[in-house]
């Protein structure tokens, strides 16, 4: 008995220590990425000035202009555009799935959604170029490579995120909440609207924010559809370039300060995404 106990406790220690090492090393990678980007990107901020980068309108890195303001605006525009399209669609879908669909339909639709999330973004971009860009060109004018086309494609891409997190938070509203409402003579829709959705509010909000995080970080589909012009769009049919697009398009040939400028773009992107994640976590925590 004594021997076995000792062996068990040694084994427990080994498992624990191994897991600790793995856990710490993944944290370390994250930390290294962060440090690396900061080391590469920060010097340019010091050299050119924070204001000239973040609020600069002109991006001509080989001539010493590193203004990424139009790209920041463009990133936010496509993100909000995606949200305007994805949020109502995704939330309706989550409500339908959670409250109206039968068990069998749920069992088919949930995996289908997960599949949707697994489609590579280049496929979304490809479909966007083939179907959405021509339709926009036809009916709204312009080249079709535009804010609206990008928003539509991103709106569809963030659907799985919004649906699955909203669905989970709607499902986690206790059955007794609904029963209390029904017992007071509420209809199904009144119960959903006045009891279930308010109770699931923070999870739904978190799903929107995580969807935004996905949209603002999306690269491949965006460079295929956005048109990548270096100005702030004034119309939904104007082309635009996002922060992610900027990095992906130029990294291959950028050298010297140009290369550093792309790292600065990366820092700004990283900060925006971290802020969104923080907001989403904040929302989720408040629910618990």
């Amino acid at each position: 008995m004594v021997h076995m106990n000792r062996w068990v406790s040694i084994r427990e220690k080994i498992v624990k220590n191994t897991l600790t090492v793995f856990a710490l090393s993944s944290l370390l990678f994250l930390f290294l990425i962060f440090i690396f980007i900061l080391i590469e990107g920060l010097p340019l901020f010091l050299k050119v000035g924070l204001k000239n980068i973040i609020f600069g309108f002109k991006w001509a890195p080989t001539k010493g202009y590193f203004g990424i303001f139009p790209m920041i605006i463009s990133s936010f525009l496509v993100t909000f555009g995606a949200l305007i399209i994805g949020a109502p669609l995704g939330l309706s879908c989550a409500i339908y799935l959670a409250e109206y669909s039968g068990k069998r339909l749920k069992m088919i639709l949930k995996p289908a959604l997960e599949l949707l999330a697994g489609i590579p973004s280049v496929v979304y971009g490809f479909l966007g170029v083939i179907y959405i860009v021509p339709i926009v060109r036809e009916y709204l004018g312009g080249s079709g490579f535009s804010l609206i086309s990008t928003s539509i494609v991103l709106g569809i891409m963030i659907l799985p995120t919004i649906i699955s997190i909203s669905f989970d938070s709607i499902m986690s509203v206790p059955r007794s909440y609904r029963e209390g409402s029904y017992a007071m003579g509420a209809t199904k829709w009144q119960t959903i609207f006045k009891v279930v959705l308010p109770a699931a509010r923070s999870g739904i909000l978190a799903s929107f924010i995580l969807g935004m995080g996905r949209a603002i970080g999306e690269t491949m589909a965006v460079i295929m559809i956005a048109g990548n012009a270096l100005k702030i769009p004034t119309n939904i049919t104007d082309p635009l370039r996002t922060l992610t697009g900027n990095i992906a398009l130029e990294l291959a040939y950028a050298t010297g300060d140009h290369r550093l400028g792309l790292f600065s773009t990366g820092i700004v992107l990283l900060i925006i995404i971290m802020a969104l994640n923080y907001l989403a976590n904040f929302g989720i925590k408040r629910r618990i």
Partner: protein
Amino acid sequence: MDVKIKIDNLRVYFEKNEILKGIKINIAKNMITGFMGPAGSGKSTLISIINRMIDFEDNVKIEGRVLIDDINILDKEINPVSLRRRIGTVFAVPIPLQRSIFENIAYGPRLKGINDKIELFKIVSDSLKKAFLWDEVKDRLDMSATKLSGGQQQRLCLARTLVLKPEIILLDEPCSGLDPISTAKIEEALSELKKEYTIVLVSNNTKQIARISDYSAFFYLGELIEYGTTEKVFTNPSQKKTEDYISGKFG
């Protein structure tokens, strides 16, 4: 007696299991009828038939009739939502909405389209008084209802039911989680309320049934074993099972 609810040969099946086995019972108007019996005897199922909450269960089969004022409420024509506005239900665990005390009670009237501030205040305060809760909350109607004590929350749920002016109030073990003082307050409220309402009280506490109900029913494994005036059931039961249950030999 003046019959409010007439249950006629009611059989309920979940999947293949017969949960209620041909229940026949007449429930008197403006009286308190107590339902007692060990866990699993079908009391809650019977309650959920009367308020049609059973509609939310899958794989249920119902046979027989439940007449309220001579209308069969199991009929397809009956709209369960309007039925539930005539039948209030208080559950074992009080679940206030995550809103203020006032809004919890105003919820039902608002659903019916009443939005006038003064009218709402009047009906909210009326039902809080009837539920014996008014004195404890009148100065803090804006406070979140979830901050009330368990006993207060249960009376809030009673008030929330009363505000709809139902004809029937169903209470499914309303005092099971409450301290004796809160229990006494609920009992006091119920004894007062029976003048206006038909009340069905499910309780696993036989003493409570004996204290406040006018008629008592004893259920066992889906059957109605004994039914009569509370006095008769508790002093001179006709079935051995009833006597054993009341005297605490099983349950």
